[in-house]
């Protein structure tokens, strides 16, 4: 008898993917629907009123642009960290992963400045639905960034022990975490113009 679960590190012969990859994509599919619900709310609220402020007139576009650059860069370093594992270069993986986490933290710091600035000017979710949707969506996105930092930090520090015992599975984990991280980037790519530019 074997209690062993198959296709954790090697792909299933028919579906062609590992369990974790399929699982992460399913999770991302549900995330698409989550943000879909929020975007739907945004569209309905915005088209329902006449006096919706233009994002670039009330929000800080340079800071948000900086954050866009930070997040896109972190996406690249994330994919590079995975590629390093594929090339069996563990130290490079650590370097890229560290940069990814630092960039994620930088993103949050910038976001923190942005929020603090809004609070100083007494702009809260209760001020108007523009600010409400701004705070809720960026806040939820921020939570996703924090989640990504936790996962990536786990893979960088305690989780990386697995590289010695089961490099295939570890690479799979990093790829899965990467998929999530790129999704967080992808959401921001839509948030940025939707909230800040239009």
């Amino acid at each position, binding site marked *: 008898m074997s209690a062993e679960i198959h296709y954790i590190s090697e792909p299933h012969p028919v579906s062609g993917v590992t*369990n974790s990859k399929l699982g992460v994509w*399913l999770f991302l599919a*549900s995330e*698409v629907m989550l943000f879909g*619900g929020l975007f739907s*709310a945004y569209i309905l*609220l915005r088209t329902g009123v006449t006096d919706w402020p233009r994002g670039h007139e009330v929000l800080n576009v340079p800071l948000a642009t900086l954050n866009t650059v930070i997040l896109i860069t972190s996406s690249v370093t994330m994919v590079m960290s995975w590629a390093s594992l594929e090339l069996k270069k563990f130290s490079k993986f650590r370097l890229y992963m560290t940069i990814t986490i630092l960039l994620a933290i930088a993103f949050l710091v910038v976001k923190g400045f942005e929020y603090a600035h809004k609070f100083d000017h007494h702009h809260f*979710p209760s001020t108007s*639905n523009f600010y409400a949707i701004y705070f*809720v969506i960026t806040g939820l996105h921020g939570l996703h960034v924090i989640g990504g930092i936790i996962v990536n930090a786990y893979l960088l520090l305690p989780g990386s022990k697995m590289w010695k015992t089961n490099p295939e599975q570890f690479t799979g984990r990093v790829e899965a975490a990467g998929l999530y991280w790129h999704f967080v980037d992808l959401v921001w790519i839509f948030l940025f113009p939707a909230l800040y530019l239009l």
Partner: protein
Amino acid sequence: MTNHDHSHVAQTHDSGHGHKMPFWKKYIFSVDHKTIGVQYAVTSLIFLFFGFGLVSLMRWQLAYPGQPLPLIGGWFSDTAMIGGIMLPEFYNQLGAMHGTIMIFLGVVPLSVGAFGNYVLPLQIGAPDMAFPKLNMMSYWLYFIGGILMLASFFVPGGAAQSGWTSYPPLSVIASGGQTWWLIGMVFLINSSLLGSVNFITTVVQLRTKGMSFFRLPFFVWAQFVTSFLLLLAFPPLMAAGVLQLSDRLLGSSFFMPSGLVVNGAVSAVAGGGNAVLWQHLFWFLAHPEVYVLILPAMGIVSEVMACNTRKPLYGYKALVYSSIFLGFMSFIVWAHHMYLTGMGTTMSTFFQITTMIISIPSVVILTTLILSLWGASIRFTVPMMFALAFLPMFGIGGLTGLPLGLNAADIHLHDTYYVIGHFHYVVAPGTIFALFAGIYHWFPKVTGRKMNEALGKIHFYFSLIFMNGVFLPMLIMGLAGVSRRLYDPTQYAHALPTQPLNVFISISAWCLGLAQIPFIINFFGSIFKGKKVDDNPWQATTLEWSTPTPPPHGNFLKEPVVYRGPYEYSTPGQKHDFWPQSMKENN
């Protein structure tokens, strides 16, 4: 007997495997899908009975408005009942929490969490779920969500009281229990999210050798489709929940239009929100949720029927395609709950058409199951009786959906007792009967003992009678135009003639409660005293019966290989009238 070859192995197996854990450890940290399935089953059954208890209280107020509740009326605090007389705010709490608990904490966790978890990996020949730790997390998130819901009864102002639908602005200005409800829902949504990811991955990846998609038992198909519904329909409710939390806690006005006057004072919120937005996001989940409630039930019924008719299901592929189509369509019918919200004609026309289309696969499934009886040799076991009763009960539930799906008839029937009767026929004598069938059917697999037939039959007949006693009169009340969610229907002249029906319903409901006593006795009694049975007492073909009872950690003694479809009963030229999927020769 099919399994005599390894039943003796099972005896030695348990002691030899070293998975004996202390009770508390087993039920807190277990990642084994069977333990988690049992945890789900017990927890959700408790919630089902609790949810039933809530409505039993409401039934007193409805039958005898304004009269003090006898015997137990004094046990409640002054915020619920004064001198045993129920307050309207407590009535509303009971109503909202009855719906929430029955759906999100009772029926779905039982049909998906319990049966899905326990049976699905066994039926596909998998050693466990694809992600056992996520599975454990899923249960504990559900558990926390349930505790939060229960705890909300004790916060100032009581539990949520804006209906299980929680329509704003009412829910936004409601007392603190609503916040607990929302946070509880966030836990439940995440729980079902993890569960559905797990189920889909398990079905796609972990089917054993030879188990092609069209050899899957229909139960697995039903769970598979259900998981997609949970995966993709729940997140918009999560979004809506976050928005409502923001409205309640941060003072935003997503659902609050401008110029509200609440309690005589102009509302302080910024306004500009849209109250109908919530309804769209809510029903985007809540309509697929109906199929989350019904599909696993159909799966259970199919398993029980195939086994007890001793013949293959008629039109297995039709069942599979219909359930996929049903699942798909369920995403694009939701706005038929909103015909009267000032919706435009194009929208309502579109949703009427999709609603009519979705009735067709349901008709196909029902017809297919009925025709499965043709040429059968029907064993009237207790699970079979519950499964058979499911068919006409679901039939009534489905048919009564028809007038509600046509917006012209909905003008009169919307938000009346007709709606209550309709969906309860689907969920109570429908789904819950199927769940009972499942409990009686798989009980021997979990415990190695059968439940008592005589007690089971008492449970069945009385439940059947009283279920109809409860829900049939509601259809009449609905036609008479009686609104739902009324604390005191006798306020209205048009409701007075049907008040005797309310008394009748209440008495039926309490009797229905009493009819569950034989079940409870049977359930617990049979765990210890039930008739011991072998690994395959029903002589069934699917894989869960080809493993020792109870299945060991890892489920199968050796990886099973599947040679044929799920329902090879009474195959001509075979010695036995059942031919298990994993058995090469039938001798």
